[in-house]
């Protein structure tokens, strides 16, 4: 029998039981739609984490002092200072895989403008921190230069959160003087908004100033002139980050004169590590969601099998008649198989549409990032086609093996 006739017969049979066909299809529709929507949510969150982390600078490497043993007592990592400006110089000179190295001096304090004040953090860095390491564009005004670092000039750039809180009436803060603690500073620029970091930290709640300004004018303790709190560096590209972090370790172990038996007194963190951690977490999430959705597809398939068995039993006489007028077993098999595949493919198409639109609705109403990927569509569609064949085959085979005499007399 030709494919056209098979399709026509299958369509006719489904039309005869529209509601039942639709309900059977619903299992597949929900299955396929949930696979696509779930994978879209998983992929979307993965992509958004990745883009946020790359927004922080995917080549970025952070070096912090590590907990050290002092007189037998292990000390908190933040309480010890092991990194020095000499380390910074050594890294700048010796590490070929680093494109930029900047020390960072942090200070918490109150920023004041007129009668507004705001508790925030000031970060003292070198110009390449913004340009190369964080790749953080200046929105208004200009960034400070190496010369500003050399002269400890009292200039700063404000993050968006600081601007909102110090300048609630609007108007450009560029050219205004603010105070950080007791130090008056000229605002020479504003930073483009960065939003929250992957950890939920507001990256815009910051003031960026020349390293030496913060080091000498704001921190201005004996320690602060020797030690730096953190060193930020940037690898020449994403693939060299691991090599770069190894170089850093080697250089710092040498400059710190650590014996091979000593632990590192610093910690090197690359963004790549973070990205990998988050990616693998969200990859796991995606797989988990896909498995759950896959189970619902399986349940849908069982629904098809069930209904096809009912259909075969119900139409035993029809099968007997078709056989008596010349249908071969294979004709009957194909007839019922076509029906099952038609149900599952139609369900698949509707499921893809529903899946894509529900992913879109999730983004629209819940503001969750979603990403509908082609492989998930192709895969779920393939799975549902296979489901149709697999679960449709046994009922169809049962039909094709009926004895025409008994089938004709079936009540």
């Amino acid at each position, binding site marked *: 029998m030709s494919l056209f006739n098979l399709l026509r017969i299958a369509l006719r049979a489904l039309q005869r039981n529209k509601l039942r066909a639709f309900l059977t299809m619903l299992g597949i529709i929900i299955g396929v739609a949930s696979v696509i929507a779930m994978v879209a949510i998983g992929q979307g969150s993965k992509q958004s984490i990745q883009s946020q982390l790359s927004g922080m600078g995917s080549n970025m490497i952070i070096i912090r002092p590590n907990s050290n043993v002092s007189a037998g007592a292990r000390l908190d990592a933040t309480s010890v200072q092991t990194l020095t400006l000499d380390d910074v110089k050594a890294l700048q000179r010796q590490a070929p895989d680093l494109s930029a190295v900047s020390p960072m001096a942090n200070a918490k304090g109150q920023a004041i403008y007129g009668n507004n004040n705001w508790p925030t953090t000031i970060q003292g860095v070198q110009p390449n921190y913004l340009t190369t390491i964080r790749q953080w564009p200046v929105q208004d005004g200009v960034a400070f230069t190496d010369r500003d670092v050399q002269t400890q000039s009292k200039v700063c750039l404000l993050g968006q959160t600081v601007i909102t809180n110090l300048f609630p009436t609007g108007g450009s803060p560029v050219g205004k003087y603010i105070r950080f603690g007791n130090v008056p500073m000229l605002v020479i620029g504003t930073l483009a908004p960065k939003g929250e970091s992957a950890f939920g930290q507001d990256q815009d709640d910051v003031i960026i100033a020349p390293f030496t300004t913060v080091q000498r004018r704001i921190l201005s303790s004996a320690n602060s002139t020797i030690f730096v709190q953190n060193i930020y560096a940037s690898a020449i590209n994403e693939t060299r980050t691991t090599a770069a972090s190894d170089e850093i370790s080697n250089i710092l172990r040498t400059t710190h004169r650590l014996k091979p038996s000593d632990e590192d007194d610093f910690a090197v963190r690359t963004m790549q590590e973070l990205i990998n951690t988050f990616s693998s977490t969200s990859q796991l999430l995606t797989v988990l969601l896909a498995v759950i959705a896959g189970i619902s597809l399986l349940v849908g398939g069982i629904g098809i099998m069930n209904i096809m068995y009912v259909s075969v039993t119900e139409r035993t006489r029809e099968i007997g008649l*078709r056989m008596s*007028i010349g*249908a071969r077993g294979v*004709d009957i098999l194909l007839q019922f198989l076509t029906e099952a595949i038609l149900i599952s493919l139609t369900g698949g198409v509707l499921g893809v549409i529903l899946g894509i639109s529900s992913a879109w609705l999730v983004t629209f109403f819940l503001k969750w990032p979603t990403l509908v990927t082609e492989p998930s569509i192709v895969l779920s569609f393939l799975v549902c086609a296979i489901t149709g064949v697999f679960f449709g085959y046994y009922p169809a085979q049962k039909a094709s093996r009926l004895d025409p005499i008994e089938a004709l007399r079936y009540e």
Partner: protein
Amino acid sequence: MGSEIVHALRGVTFDVVAGEFLTIMGSSGSGKTTLLNTLGCLDKPSDGTYLLDGVDVGKLGRNELAKLRNNKIGFVFQAYNLLPRTSALENVELPLLYNPALSTKERRERAIKCLEAVSLGDRLDHTPSQLSGGQQQRVAIARALVNEPVMILADEATGNLDSRTSYSIMALFQELNSQGKTIVFVTHEPDIASFSSRTIMLRDGKVMKDSLNEGRKSAREMLDALPKTEDY
């Protein structure tokens, strides 16, 4: 279930000549149905041979039997066995669907011709539920004719019909027979048998009587003789 071997037919031998109108009669359990199944290539004899149009049916497989049924046999059942919610035309087209040699157009033309032959040319698009019992049986006969079989097999084809409609169906069979169609009709009603040209009586799986009918009646005349309006 079925562990005891039952010989439904024993030593039945006869020839059906082309153009004959043969009735097979017998009471329940006489082997009529088994004989019909065998003649219709639905079943194969456990012993002996059945030659249909020169082909030894006993040697064929399931698929070949199906092909034989499609090409050489036309079935008419007591319960019509039409596909529900399917138009008369499509019901008649059904056997041709399993014949790959025919195009859609040919199929349609032949189905229409057959429905016209059973005077249902104006009911092509009616579904079985929109047709009377007699009309449904006519559709079934058209379906049996459509593949131009060598033999039409009717199994109690008038069993579900009142006498007036039975006569009209028998008149149709007689008409087809007069056009040269070979008809084998299984029934237990003697007056139906009287319309045929030859009767085989079965009892306990054996042929009791095989005789040509002397005073063959015309169903058309019987139909005309019935009162036009029946008051009851």
